[in-house]
Protein backbone atom coordinates (compact mmCIF):
# COMPACT_ATOMS: atom_id res chain seq x y z
CA UNK A 1 0.00 0.00 0.00
CA UNK A 2 2.56 2.52 1.09
CA UNK A 3 4.68 1.40 -1.84
CA UNK A 4 2.28 3.26 -4.10
CA UNK A 5 3.14 6.54 -2.46
CA UNK A 6 6.89 5.76 -2.43
CA UNK A 7 6.63 5.31 -6.18
CA UNK A 8 4.76 8.62 -6.46
CA UNK A 9 7.56 10.21 -4.43
CA UNK A 10 10.20 8.80 -6.75
CA UNK A 11 8.36 9.87 -9.92
CA UNK A 12 7.94 13.35 -8.46
CA UNK A 13 11.72 13.66 -7.94
CA UNK A 14 12.35 12.52 -11.49
CA UNK A 15 9.78 15.01 -12.69
CA UNK A 16 11.54 17.92 -10.96
CA UNK A 17 14.78 17.16 -12.75
CA UNK A 18 13.23 17.07 -16.21
CA UNK A 19 13.36 20.79 -16.75
CA UNK A 20 16.94 21.66 -15.99
CA UNK A 21 16.69 25.32 -17.00
CA UNK A 22 13.56 25.84 -14.97
CA UNK A 23 15.19 24.15 -12.02
CA UNK A 24 18.29 26.31 -12.18
CA UNK A 25 16.26 29.51 -12.55
CA UNK A 26 14.20 28.55 -9.55
CA UNK A 27 17.33 28.13 -7.46
CA UNK A 28 18.60 31.50 -8.66
CA UNK A 29 15.28 33.06 -7.66
CA UNK A 30 15.76 31.68 -4.17
CA UNK A 31 19.27 33.09 -3.95
CA UNK A 32 18.01 36.49 -5.09
CA UNK A 33 15.38 36.37 -2.39
CA UNK A 34 18.06 35.75 0.23
CA UNK A 35 20.17 38.64 -1.06
CA UNK A 36 17.27 41.09 -1.30
CA UNK A 37 16.09 40.37 2.21
CA UNK A 38 19.63 40.69 3.50
CA UNK A 39 20.22 44.10 1.95
CA UNK A 40 16.77 45.35 2.92
CA UNK A 41 17.37 44.76 6.61
CA UNK A 42 21.00 45.93 6.36
CA UNK A 43 19.53 49.22 5.14
CA UNK A 44 16.88 49.43 7.84
CA UNK A 45 19.40 48.88 10.60
CA UNK A 46 21.93 51.53 9.50
CA UNK A 47 20.08 54.20 11.49
CA UNK A 48 19.35 52.34 14.71
CA UNK A 49 20.72 49.44 16.72
CA UNK A 50 17.33 48.09 17.82
CA UNK A 51 14.04 47.84 16.01
CA UNK A 52 10.78 46.35 17.31
CA UNK A 53 12.83 44.72 20.05
CA UNK A 54 15.04 42.96 17.49
CA UNK A 55 18.75 43.60 17.04
CA UNK A 56 20.15 43.49 13.52
CA UNK A 57 21.58 40.00 13.87
CA UNK A 58 18.34 38.71 15.42
CA UNK A 59 16.26 40.18 12.63
CA UNK A 60 18.55 38.75 9.96
CA UNK A 61 18.47 35.38 11.62
CA UNK A 62 14.66 35.59 11.72
CA UNK A 63 14.17 36.40 8.06
CA UNK A 64 16.77 33.89 6.90
CA UNK A 65 15.29 31.15 9.03
CA UNK A 66 11.81 32.03 7.77
CA UNK A 67 13.00 31.59 4.21
CA UNK A 68 14.36 28.16 5.09
CA UNK A 69 11.22 27.18 6.98
CA UNK A 70 8.96 28.35 4.20
CA UNK A 71 11.06 26.45 1.66
CA UNK A 72 9.94 23.44 3.61
CA UNK A 73 6.37 24.36 4.50
CA UNK A 74 5.23 26.23 1.43
CA UNK A 75 6.70 24.23 -1.42
CA UNK A 76 3.63 22.29 -2.43
CA UNK A 77 2.91 21.32 -6.03
CA UNK A 78 -0.51 20.20 -4.79
CA UNK A 79 -1.43 23.86 -4.40
CA UNK A 80 -0.69 24.49 -8.07
CA UNK A 81 -2.51 21.43 -9.37
CA UNK A 82 -5.46 20.27 -7.29
CA UNK A 83 -7.71 23.20 -8.24
CA UNK A 84 -7.03 22.75 -11.94
CA UNK A 85 -7.51 18.99 -11.91
CA UNK A 86 -10.86 19.36 -10.21
CA UNK A 87 -11.89 22.14 -12.56
CA UNK A 88 -11.01 20.44 -15.84
CA UNK A 89 -12.08 16.95 -14.82
CA UNK A 90 -8.64 15.31 -14.71
CA UNK A 91 -9.61 14.27 -11.20
CA UNK A 92 -11.61 11.47 -12.88
CA UNK A 93 -8.37 9.73 -13.85
CA UNK A 94 -7.59 9.25 -10.16
CA UNK A 95 -11.10 8.53 -8.95
CA UNK A 96 -11.50 5.38 -11.04
CA UNK A 97 -8.39 3.88 -9.47
CA UNK A 98 -7.94 2.31 -6.05
CA UNK A 99 -5.85 5.29 -4.98
CA UNK A 100 -6.20 8.11 -2.49
CA UNK A 101 -6.05 11.38 -4.35
CA UNK A 102 -5.09 13.34 -1.24
CA UNK A 103 -2.31 10.96 -0.20
CA UNK A 104 -1.08 11.02 -3.77
CA UNK A 105 -0.66 14.80 -3.71
CA UNK A 106 0.76 14.80 -0.21
CA UNK A 107 3.45 12.38 -1.38
CA UNK A 108 4.26 14.68 -4.28
CA UNK A 109 4.45 17.59 -1.86
CA UNK A 110 6.87 15.71 0.40
CA UNK A 111 9.05 14.91 -2.60
CA UNK A 112 9.17 18.55 -3.57
CA UNK A 113 9.85 19.65 0.02
CA UNK A 114 12.73 17.25 0.53
CA UNK A 115 14.36 18.31 -2.70
CA UNK A 116 13.83 21.95 -1.85
CA UNK A 117 15.34 21.48 1.58
CA UNK A 118 18.51 19.89 0.24
CA UNK A 119 19.10 22.74 -2.17
CA UNK A 120 18.07 25.45 0.29
CA UNK A 121 20.72 24.12 2.71
CA UNK A 122 23.38 24.39 0.02
CA UNK A 123 22.34 27.91 -0.89
CA UNK A 124 22.11 28.87 2.75
CA UNK A 125 25.66 27.74 3.48
CA UNK A 126 26.87 29.54 0.39
CA UNK A 127 25.32 32.77 1.58
CA UNK A 128 26.61 32.33 5.08
CA UNK A 129 30.10 32.12 3.64
CA UNK A 130 29.68 35.17 1.38
CA UNK A 131 27.78 37.48 3.75
CA UNK A 132 28.90 35.97 7.06
CA UNK A 133 26.04 37.35 9.10
CA UNK A 134 25.92 36.53 12.78
CA UNK A 135 23.51 33.69 13.43
CA UNK A 136 22.12 32.33 16.61
CA UNK A 137 21.82 28.57 16.06
CA UNK A 138 19.96 26.68 18.83
CA UNK A 139 21.98 24.27 20.91
CA UNK A 140 19.43 22.93 23.39
CA UNK A 141 17.99 19.50 22.57
CA UNK A 142 14.57 20.62 23.75
CA UNK A 143 14.53 23.56 21.33
CA UNK A 144 15.59 21.39 18.42
CA UNK A 145 13.00 18.73 19.25
CA UNK A 146 10.26 21.35 19.61
CA UNK A 147 11.32 22.89 16.31
CA UNK A 148 11.14 19.57 14.49
CA UNK A 149 7.70 18.84 15.92
CA UNK A 150 6.25 22.27 15.08
CA UNK A 151 7.67 22.17 11.59
CA UNK A 152 6.14 18.75 10.94
CA UNK A 153 2.80 20.03 12.17
CA UNK A 154 3.22 23.12 9.99
CA UNK A 155 3.87 21.00 6.88
CA UNK A 156 0.70 19.00 7.47
CA UNK A 157 -1.34 22.06 8.42
CA UNK A 158 -0.24 23.90 5.29
CA UNK A 159 -1.33 20.97 3.14
CA UNK A 160 -4.75 20.89 4.79
CA UNK A 161 -5.33 24.64 4.53
CA UNK A 162 -4.13 24.99 0.97
CA UNK A 163 -6.03 21.88 -0.17
CA UNK A 164 -9.25 23.20 1.41
CA UNK A 165 -8.84 26.43 -0.49
CA UNK A 166 -8.33 24.50 -3.76
CA UNK A 167 -11.56 22.58 -3.21
CA UNK A 168 -13.43 25.74 -4.18
CA UNK A 169 -13.00 24.41 -7.73
CA UNK A 170 -15.66 21.82 -6.93
CA UNK A 171 -18.23 24.61 -6.91
CA UNK A 172 -16.52 27.19 -9.11
CA UNK A 173 -14.55 25.18 -11.67
CA UNK A 174 -13.98 28.15 -13.93
CA UNK A 175 -11.53 30.07 -11.78
CA UNK A 176 -9.69 29.73 -8.51
CA UNK A 177 -6.90 32.16 -9.27
CA UNK A 178 -8.37 34.96 -7.21
CA UNK A 179 -8.73 32.66 -4.25
CA UNK A 180 -5.21 31.29 -4.59
CA UNK A 181 -3.87 34.80 -4.59
CA UNK A 182 -5.72 35.78 -1.43
CA UNK A 183 -4.50 32.62 0.29
CA UNK A 184 -0.89 33.35 -0.62
CA UNK A 185 -1.14 36.92 0.68
CA UNK A 186 -2.76 35.67 3.89
CA UNK A 187 -0.11 33.09 4.46
CA UNK A 188 2.79 35.34 3.57
CA UNK A 189 1.78 38.03 6.04
CA UNK A 190 -0.25 36.33 8.75
CA UNK A 191 2.15 33.43 8.96
CA UNK A 192 5.03 35.81 9.59
CA UNK A 193 6.90 35.29 6.36
CA UNK A 194 7.64 38.97 5.72
CA UNK A 195 8.36 40.19 9.27
CA UNK A 196 8.13 38.67 12.75
CA UNK A 197 4.59 39.00 14.07
CA UNK A 198 5.65 40.67 17.33
CA UNK A 199 6.44 43.74 15.26
CA UNK A 200 2.67 44.34 15.03
CA UNK A 201 0.55 46.25 17.59
CA UNK A 202 -0.51 44.05 20.48
CA UNK A 203 -4.23 43.89 19.57
CA UNK A 204 -3.66 42.95 15.96
CA UNK A 205 -1.06 40.39 16.97
CA UNK A 206 -3.45 38.77 19.46
CA UNK A 207 -6.12 38.60 16.78
CA UNK A 208 -3.79 36.89 14.33
CA UNK A 209 -2.74 34.42 17.03
CA UNK A 210 -6.33 33.15 17.07
CA UNK A 211 -5.97 31.95 13.46
CA UNK A 212 -4.01 28.88 12.33
CA UNK A 213 -1.63 30.90 10.18
CA UNK A 214 1.12 31.76 12.73
CA UNK A 215 1.60 28.03 13.26
CA UNK A 216 2.80 27.69 9.69
CA UNK A 217 5.94 29.86 9.79
CA UNK A 218 6.09 32.22 12.73
CA UNK A 219 6.09 29.72 15.60
CA UNK A 220 8.54 27.21 14.08
CA UNK A 221 10.90 30.10 13.38
CA UNK A 222 10.45 31.73 16.77
CA UNK A 223 11.10 28.39 18.48
CA UNK A 224 14.22 27.88 16.38
CA UNK A 225 15.45 31.28 17.48
CA UNK A 226 14.75 30.57 21.15
CA UNK A 227 12.12 33.34 21.35
CA UNK A 228 9.63 31.01 23.02
CA UNK A 229 10.15 30.09 26.66
CA UNK A 230 9.90 26.44 27.67
CA UNK A 231 6.79 27.20 29.75
CA UNK A 232 4.95 28.45 26.64
CA UNK A 233 5.99 25.49 24.50
CA UNK A 234 3.38 22.90 25.55
CA UNK A 235 0.54 25.37 24.96
CA UNK A 236 1.80 26.23 21.46
CA UNK A 237 2.29 22.60 20.51
CA UNK A 238 -1.17 21.79 21.81
CA UNK A 239 -2.85 24.58 19.82
CA UNK A 240 -0.91 23.66 16.68
CA UNK A 241 -2.01 20.05 17.03
CA UNK A 242 -5.60 21.15 17.58
CA UNK A 243 -5.52 23.19 14.37
CA UNK A 244 -4.12 20.22 12.49
CA UNK A 245 -6.97 18.03 13.71
CA UNK A 246 -9.63 20.66 12.99
CA UNK A 247 -8.33 21.33 9.49
CA UNK A 248 -8.00 17.61 8.79
CA UNK A 249 -11.67 17.02 9.52
CA UNK A 250 -12.66 20.17 7.69
CA UNK A 251 -10.71 19.00 4.63
CA UNK A 252 -12.35 15.55 4.79
CA UNK A 253 -15.74 17.17 5.09
CA UNK A 254 -15.19 19.45 2.11
CA UNK A 255 -13.73 16.57 0.07
CA UNK A 256 -16.87 14.50 0.69
CA UNK A 257 -19.17 17.40 -0.15
CA UNK A 258 -17.13 18.32 -3.20
CA UNK A 259 -17.03 14.78 -4.58
CA UNK A 260 -20.76 14.56 -4.20
CA UNK A 261 -21.11 17.68 -6.27
CA UNK A 262 -18.50 16.47 -8.77
CA UNK A 263 -20.26 13.18 -9.30
CA UNK A 264 -23.64 14.77 -9.72
CA UNK A 265 -22.46 17.29 -12.29
CA UNK A 266 -19.57 15.58 -13.95
CA UNK A 267 -16.89 17.25 -15.98
Amino acid at each position, binding site marked *: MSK*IYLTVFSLAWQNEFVYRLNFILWRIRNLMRFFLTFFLWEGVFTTSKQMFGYSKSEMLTYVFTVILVSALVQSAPSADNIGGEIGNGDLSNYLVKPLSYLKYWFSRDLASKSLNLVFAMVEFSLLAIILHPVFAIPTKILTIAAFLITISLAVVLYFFISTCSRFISFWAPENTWGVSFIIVIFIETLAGSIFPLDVLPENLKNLIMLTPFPYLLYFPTAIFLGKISSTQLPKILFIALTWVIIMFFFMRYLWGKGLKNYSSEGR
Partner: protein
Amino acid sequence: MDSVIKVSNLKKYYKVHQKDPGLLGSLRSLFRREYFEVKAVDNISFEIDQGELIGFIGPNGAGKTTTLKVLSGLLYPSSGSVRVLGYEPFKRQSEFQRQFSLVMGQKNQLWWDLPAFESFILNKEIYGVPDDIFKKTVTELSQMLDIEDVLKVQVRKLSLGQRMKAELVAALLHRPKVLFLDEPTIGLDVLAQKKMRDFIKEYNQKYKSTIILTSHYMGDVKELCKRVIIIDRGMILYDGSLSAIVEKFAPFKVINVDFEVAPDLDRLKKIGKLVKYEDLHAEIEVHREKAAKLAGSLLSDFPVADLTIEEPAMEDIIRDVFNKSNLLTEV
Protein backbone atom coordinates in the same frame (compact mmCIF):
# COMPACT_ATOMS: atom_id res chain seq x y z
CA MET B 1 -24.75 -16.90 -17.54
CA ASP B 2 -25.05 -13.90 -15.26
CA SER B 3 -24.62 -10.59 -16.94
CA VAL B 4 -21.52 -8.57 -16.12
CA ILE B 5 -23.22 -5.24 -16.59
CA LYS B 6 -26.82 -4.62 -15.74
CA VAL B 7 -28.45 -1.24 -16.18
CA SER B 8 -32.13 -0.71 -15.53
CA ASN B 9 -34.11 2.46 -16.00
CA LEU B 10 -31.02 4.61 -15.63
CA LYS B 11 -31.61 8.34 -15.65
CA LYS B 12 -29.00 11.05 -15.33
CA TYR B 13 -30.16 14.65 -15.34
CA TYR B 14 -27.90 17.66 -14.96
CA LYS B 15 -28.61 21.22 -14.07
CA VAL B 16 -26.78 23.58 -16.34
CA HIS B 17 -26.82 27.33 -16.04
CA GLN B 18 -27.28 29.43 -19.10
CA LYS B 19 -25.88 32.83 -19.83
CA ASP B 20 -27.29 35.49 -22.11
CA PRO B 21 -24.87 36.46 -24.84
CA GLY B 22 -22.48 39.34 -24.36
CA LEU B 23 -20.83 41.14 -21.47
CA LEU B 24 -24.12 42.23 -19.94
CA GLY B 25 -25.23 38.62 -19.86
CA SER B 26 -21.98 37.66 -18.11
CA LEU B 27 -22.48 40.34 -15.48
CA ARG B 28 -26.06 39.29 -14.89
CA SER B 29 -25.01 35.65 -14.52
CA LEU B 30 -22.66 36.67 -11.69
CA PHE B 31 -25.69 37.54 -9.59
CA ARG B 32 -28.55 35.47 -10.88
CA ARG B 33 -28.24 32.22 -12.69
CA GLU B 34 -30.96 30.55 -14.63
CA TYR B 35 -30.73 26.81 -14.66
CA PHE B 36 -32.25 24.38 -17.04
CA GLU B 37 -32.26 20.64 -16.87
CA VAL B 38 -30.39 18.46 -19.34
CA LYS B 39 -31.53 14.89 -19.66
CA ALA B 40 -28.16 13.39 -20.48
CA VAL B 41 -29.44 9.85 -20.04
CA ASP B 42 -33.17 9.29 -20.00
CA ASN B 43 -34.42 5.95 -18.83
CA ILE B 44 -32.16 3.40 -20.48
CA SER B 45 -31.81 -0.31 -19.73
CA PHE B 46 -29.48 -2.95 -21.07
CA GLU B 47 -27.51 -6.02 -20.04
CA ILE B 48 -24.10 -7.14 -21.18
CA ASP B 49 -22.64 -10.61 -20.80
CA GLN B 50 -19.07 -11.58 -20.12
CA GLY B 51 -16.77 -11.36 -23.13
CA GLU B 52 -19.10 -9.20 -25.21
CA LEU B 53 -17.68 -6.31 -27.21
CA ILE B 54 -20.35 -3.68 -27.49
CA GLY B 55 -20.36 -0.58 -29.64
CA PHE B 56 -22.03 2.52 -28.29
CA ILE B 57 -22.86 4.88 -31.09
CA GLY B 58 -24.57 8.20 -31.26
CA PRO B 59 -23.91 11.82 -32.15
CA ASN B 60 -22.14 14.27 -29.82
CA GLY B 61 -24.07 14.83 -26.63
CA ALA B 62 -26.14 11.67 -27.09
CA GLY B 63 -25.28 10.41 -23.60
CA LYS B 64 -22.55 7.88 -24.44
CA THR B 65 -19.86 9.35 -22.23
CA THR B 66 -22.32 10.04 -19.43
CA THR B 67 -23.34 6.38 -19.45
CA LEU B 68 -19.71 5.25 -19.30
CA LYS B 69 -19.06 7.65 -16.44
CA VAL B 70 -21.99 6.25 -14.50
CA LEU B 71 -20.71 2.72 -15.14
CA SER B 72 -17.25 3.76 -13.89
CA GLY B 73 -18.58 5.34 -10.72
CA LEU B 74 -17.66 8.90 -11.66
CA LEU B 75 -21.27 9.97 -11.74
CA TYR B 76 -24.09 8.77 -9.62
CA PRO B 77 -27.39 8.07 -11.26
CA SER B 78 -30.36 10.41 -10.81
CA SER B 79 -32.48 7.28 -10.68
CA GLY B 80 -32.45 3.66 -11.76
CA SER B 81 -30.05 0.91 -10.87
CA VAL B 82 -26.60 0.05 -12.18
CA ARG B 83 -24.53 -3.05 -11.42
CA VAL B 84 -21.09 -3.78 -12.82
CA LEU B 85 -19.54 -7.11 -11.80
CA GLY B 86 -22.13 -7.13 -9.03
CA TYR B 87 -20.96 -3.80 -7.57
CA GLU B 88 -22.63 -0.43 -7.43
CA PRO B 89 -20.00 1.61 -9.29
CA PHE B 90 -20.52 4.94 -7.53
CA LYS B 91 -19.51 3.43 -4.19
CA ARG B 92 -16.00 3.27 -5.65
CA GLN B 93 -14.97 0.17 -3.71
CA SER B 94 -11.38 -0.76 -4.38
CA GLU B 95 -12.29 -4.43 -5.07
CA PHE B 96 -14.43 -3.14 -7.92
CA GLN B 97 -11.88 -0.62 -9.15
CA ARG B 98 -9.22 -3.33 -9.40
CA GLN B 99 -11.33 -5.13 -11.99
CA PHE B 100 -12.08 -2.47 -14.54
CA SER B 101 -10.46 0.30 -16.51
CA LEU B 102 -11.67 3.43 -18.20
CA VAL B 103 -9.78 4.93 -21.12
CA MET B 104 -10.88 8.31 -22.38
CA GLY B 105 -9.44 9.29 -25.72
CA GLN B 106 -9.39 12.95 -24.72
CA LYS B 107 -7.84 12.50 -21.28
CA ASN B 108 -4.35 11.63 -20.40
CA GLN B 109 -3.35 9.57 -17.38
CA LEU B 110 0.36 9.15 -18.15
CA TRP B 111 2.90 11.49 -16.55
CA TRP B 112 3.53 13.99 -19.29
CA ASP B 113 7.19 14.71 -18.61
CA LEU B 114 8.34 11.16 -17.91
CA PRO B 115 8.62 8.06 -20.10
CA ALA B 116 5.43 5.99 -20.24
CA PHE B 117 7.23 3.15 -18.50
CA GLU B 118 7.39 5.17 -15.27
CA SER B 119 3.62 5.55 -15.27
CA PHE B 120 3.33 1.81 -15.85
CA ILE B 121 5.38 1.24 -12.70
CA LEU B 122 3.03 3.48 -10.74
CA ASN B 123 -0.02 1.60 -12.05
CA LYS B 124 1.70 -1.67 -11.16
CA GLU B 125 1.89 -0.49 -7.54
CA ILE B 126 -1.62 0.99 -7.51
CA TYR B 127 -3.18 -2.26 -8.69
CA GLY B 128 -0.72 -4.49 -6.89
CA VAL B 129 0.43 -6.37 -9.99
CA PRO B 130 3.17 -8.93 -9.18
CA ASP B 131 6.59 -8.34 -10.82
CA ASP B 132 6.57 -11.32 -13.17
CA ILE B 133 3.05 -10.68 -14.45
CA PHE B 134 3.87 -6.99 -14.87
CA LYS B 135 6.92 -7.76 -17.02
CA LYS B 136 5.03 -10.30 -19.06
CA THR B 137 2.05 -8.03 -19.64
CA VAL B 138 4.10 -4.98 -20.61
CA THR B 139 6.15 -6.98 -23.09
CA GLU B 140 3.14 -8.70 -24.56
CA LEU B 141 0.91 -5.64 -24.90
CA SER B 142 3.60 -3.35 -26.20
CA GLN B 143 4.55 -5.95 -28.79
CA MET B 144 0.95 -6.27 -29.90
CA LEU B 145 0.72 -2.49 -30.26
CA ASP B 146 4.21 -2.09 -31.65
CA ILE B 147 5.45 0.51 -29.14
CA GLU B 148 8.29 -1.40 -27.42
CA ASP B 149 10.91 1.07 -28.60
CA VAL B 150 9.18 4.21 -27.30
CA LEU B 151 8.42 3.14 -23.74
CA LYS B 152 11.52 4.92 -22.45
CA VAL B 153 10.80 8.17 -24.31
CA GLN B 154 9.13 11.13 -22.59
CA VAL B 155 5.37 10.96 -23.15
CA ARG B 156 5.28 14.55 -24.40
CA LYS B 157 7.59 13.57 -27.27
CA LEU B 158 5.32 10.76 -28.50
CA SER B 159 2.93 11.07 -31.41
CA LEU B 160 -0.77 11.01 -30.62
CA GLY B 161 -1.04 7.45 -31.87
CA GLN B 162 1.89 6.22 -29.78
CA ARG B 163 0.52 8.01 -26.76
CA MET B 164 -2.94 6.47 -27.08
CA LYS B 165 -1.37 3.03 -27.39
CA ALA B 166 0.70 3.67 -24.27
CA GLU B 167 -2.44 4.88 -22.47
CA LEU B 168 -4.12 1.64 -23.40
CA VAL B 169 -1.23 -0.46 -22.10
CA ALA B 170 -1.28 1.49 -18.82
CA ALA B 171 -4.99 0.80 -18.48
CA LEU B 172 -4.63 -2.92 -19.14
CA LEU B 173 -1.71 -3.79 -16.85
CA HIS B 174 -4.00 -5.19 -14.19
CA ARG B 175 -5.91 -7.26 -16.75
CA PRO B 176 -9.30 -5.67 -16.11
CA LYS B 177 -12.35 -7.86 -16.56
CA VAL B 178 -14.33 -4.89 -17.80
CA LEU B 179 -12.99 -2.20 -20.08
CA PHE B 180 -14.64 1.07 -21.07
CA LEU B 181 -13.14 2.77 -24.08
CA ASP B 182 -14.40 6.27 -24.78
CA GLU B 183 -13.44 7.34 -28.30
CA PRO B 184 -10.16 5.39 -28.28
CA THR B 185 -9.40 6.20 -31.92
CA ILE B 186 -10.24 9.90 -31.88
CA GLY B 187 -7.78 11.97 -33.86
CA LEU B 188 -5.76 8.98 -35.02
CA ASP B 189 -4.73 8.44 -38.62
CA VAL B 190 -6.18 5.56 -40.59
CA LEU B 191 -3.20 3.29 -39.99
CA ALA B 192 -3.14 3.87 -36.25
CA GLN B 193 -6.91 3.38 -36.10
CA LYS B 194 -6.54 0.04 -37.78
CA LYS B 195 -3.80 -1.04 -35.40
CA MET B 196 -5.89 0.03 -32.44
CA ARG B 197 -8.92 -1.88 -33.69
CA ASP B 198 -6.94 -5.04 -34.34
CA PHE B 199 -5.55 -4.79 -30.86
CA ILE B 200 -8.93 -4.32 -29.18
CA LYS B 201 -10.34 -7.27 -31.08
CA GLU B 202 -7.41 -9.50 -30.24
CA TYR B 203 -7.43 -8.44 -26.62
CA ASN B 204 -11.14 -9.16 -26.30
CA GLN B 205 -10.76 -12.64 -27.77
CA LYS B 206 -7.63 -13.52 -25.86
CA TYR B 207 -8.70 -12.41 -22.38
CA LYS B 208 -12.48 -12.75 -22.70
CA SER B 209 -12.84 -9.30 -21.20
CA THR B 210 -16.06 -7.38 -21.52
CA ILE B 211 -15.60 -4.20 -23.52
CA ILE B 212 -17.82 -1.23 -24.20
CA LEU B 213 -16.55 1.07 -26.88
CA THR B 214 -17.94 4.43 -27.89
CA SER B 215 -16.98 5.94 -31.16
CA HIS B 216 -17.86 8.45 -33.82
CA TYR B 217 -16.28 6.27 -36.43
CA MET B 218 -18.60 3.68 -37.86
CA GLY B 219 -15.48 1.88 -39.00
CA ASP B 220 -14.54 1.06 -35.42
CA VAL B 221 -17.94 -0.37 -34.66
CA LYS B 222 -18.43 -2.15 -37.96
CA GLU B 223 -15.17 -3.99 -37.60
CA LEU B 224 -15.26 -4.78 -33.91
CA CYS B 225 -18.74 -5.17 -32.57
CA LYS B 226 -21.36 -7.79 -33.17
CA ARG B 227 -23.81 -5.92 -31.00
CA VAL B 228 -24.42 -2.21 -31.02
CA ILE B 229 -26.41 0.13 -28.88
CA ILE B 230 -27.51 3.25 -30.69
CA ILE B 231 -28.23 6.12 -28.38
CA ASP B 232 -29.50 9.61 -29.07
CA ARG B 233 -30.75 12.34 -26.74
CA GLY B 234 -30.25 10.04 -23.81
CA MET B 235 -32.48 7.28 -25.17
CA ILE B 236 -31.71 3.93 -26.73
CA LEU B 237 -32.93 3.79 -30.30
CA TYR B 238 -31.61 0.35 -31.06
CA ASP B 239 -29.96 -2.49 -29.20
CA GLY B 240 -29.08 -5.58 -31.14
CA SER B 241 -26.84 -7.12 -33.72
CA LEU B 242 -25.20 -4.94 -36.28
CA SER B 243 -26.48 -7.00 -39.19
CA ALA B 244 -30.08 -6.72 -38.04
CA ILE B 245 -29.91 -2.93 -38.18
CA VAL B 246 -29.85 -3.15 -41.91
CA GLU B 247 -33.03 -5.16 -42.03
CA LYS B 248 -34.78 -3.09 -39.42
CA PHE B 249 -33.96 0.38 -40.61
CA ALA B 250 -33.23 -0.18 -44.28
CA PRO B 251 -35.76 -2.52 -45.89
CA PHE B 252 -34.26 -1.72 -49.28
CA LYS B 253 -31.23 -2.44 -51.39
CA VAL B 254 -29.53 -0.24 -53.92
CA ILE B 255 -29.20 -1.23 -57.56
CA ASN B 256 -26.32 0.47 -59.35
CA VAL B 257 -26.71 0.47 -63.11
CA ASP B 258 -24.54 1.73 -65.97
CA PHE B 259 -26.37 2.18 -69.28
CA GLU B 260 -25.02 1.98 -72.84
CA VAL B 261 -27.35 4.71 -74.07
CA ALA B 262 -29.61 7.08 -72.16
CA PRO B 263 -32.66 5.18 -70.87
CA ASP B 264 -36.24 6.41 -70.67
CA LEU B 265 -36.23 8.02 -67.23
CA ASP B 266 -39.99 7.82 -66.71
CA ARG B 267 -39.92 4.08 -67.27
CA LEU B 268 -36.87 3.77 -65.04
CA LYS B 269 -38.72 5.50 -62.18
CA LYS B 270 -41.32 2.74 -62.26
CA ILE B 271 -38.69 0.18 -61.24
CA GLY B 272 -37.97 1.81 -57.89
CA LYS B 273 -36.93 5.05 -56.21
CA LEU B 274 -34.43 6.76 -58.46
CA VAL B 275 -31.94 8.27 -56.04
CA LYS B 276 -29.42 9.55 -58.54
CA TYR B 277 -28.98 9.71 -62.26
CA GLU B 278 -26.03 11.25 -64.09
CA ASP B 279 -23.68 10.34 -66.92
CA LEU B 280 -25.55 7.16 -67.79
CA HIS B 281 -25.22 5.95 -64.19
CA ALA B 282 -28.24 5.39 -61.94
CA GLU B 283 -28.81 4.41 -58.33
CA ILE B 284 -32.21 2.91 -57.62
CA GLU B 285 -33.58 1.97 -54.22
CA VAL B 286 -35.80 -1.11 -54.28
CA HIS B 287 -37.48 -3.27 -51.70
CA ARG B 288 -34.99 -5.92 -50.58
CA GLU B 289 -37.17 -8.94 -51.41
CA LYS B 290 -37.88 -7.68 -54.93
CA ALA B 291 -34.29 -6.70 -55.68
CA ALA B 292 -33.40 -9.78 -57.72
CA LYS B 293 -36.59 -9.75 -59.77
CA LEU B 294 -36.33 -6.03 -60.53
CA ALA B 295 -32.70 -6.40 -61.52
CA GLY B 296 -33.82 -9.05 -63.98
CA SER B 297 -36.39 -6.81 -65.60
CA LEU B 298 -33.81 -3.99 -65.77
CA LEU B 299 -31.45 -6.29 -67.66
CA SER B 300 -34.11 -7.41 -70.10
CA ASP B 301 -35.88 -4.06 -70.69
CA PHE B 302 -33.01 -1.54 -70.68
CA PRO B 303 -29.71 -1.11 -72.49
CA VAL B 304 -27.65 -2.11 -69.44
CA ALA B 305 -23.83 -2.13 -69.55
CA ASP B 306 -23.23 -3.11 -65.94
CA LEU B 307 -25.34 -3.78 -62.85
CA THR B 308 -24.69 -4.44 -59.15
CA ILE B 309 -26.97 -4.91 -56.15
CA GLU B 310 -25.63 -3.43 -52.92
CA GLU B 311 -26.55 -3.11 -49.27
CA PRO B 312 -27.01 0.52 -48.31
CA ALA B 313 -24.02 2.04 -46.52
CA MET B 314 -24.13 1.62 -42.75
CA GLU B 315 -23.33 5.30 -42.27
CA ASP B 316 -26.40 6.28 -44.28
CA ILE B 317 -28.66 3.98 -42.33
CA ILE B 318 -27.47 5.31 -38.98
CA ARG B 319 -27.87 8.87 -40.20
CA ASP B 320 -31.41 7.99 -41.22
CA VAL B 321 -32.07 6.57 -37.79
CA PHE B 322 -30.94 9.77 -36.13
CA ASN B 323 -32.88 11.94 -38.55
CA LYS B 324 -36.04 9.99 -37.87
CA SER B 325 -35.57 10.29 -34.11
CA ASN B 326 -35.13 14.04 -34.46
CA LEU B 327 -38.37 14.24 -36.42
CA LEU B 328 -40.16 12.26 -33.76
CA THR B 329 -39.05 14.55 -30.95
CA GLU B 330 -39.76 17.70 -32.91
CA VAL B 331 -43.35 16.76 -33.77
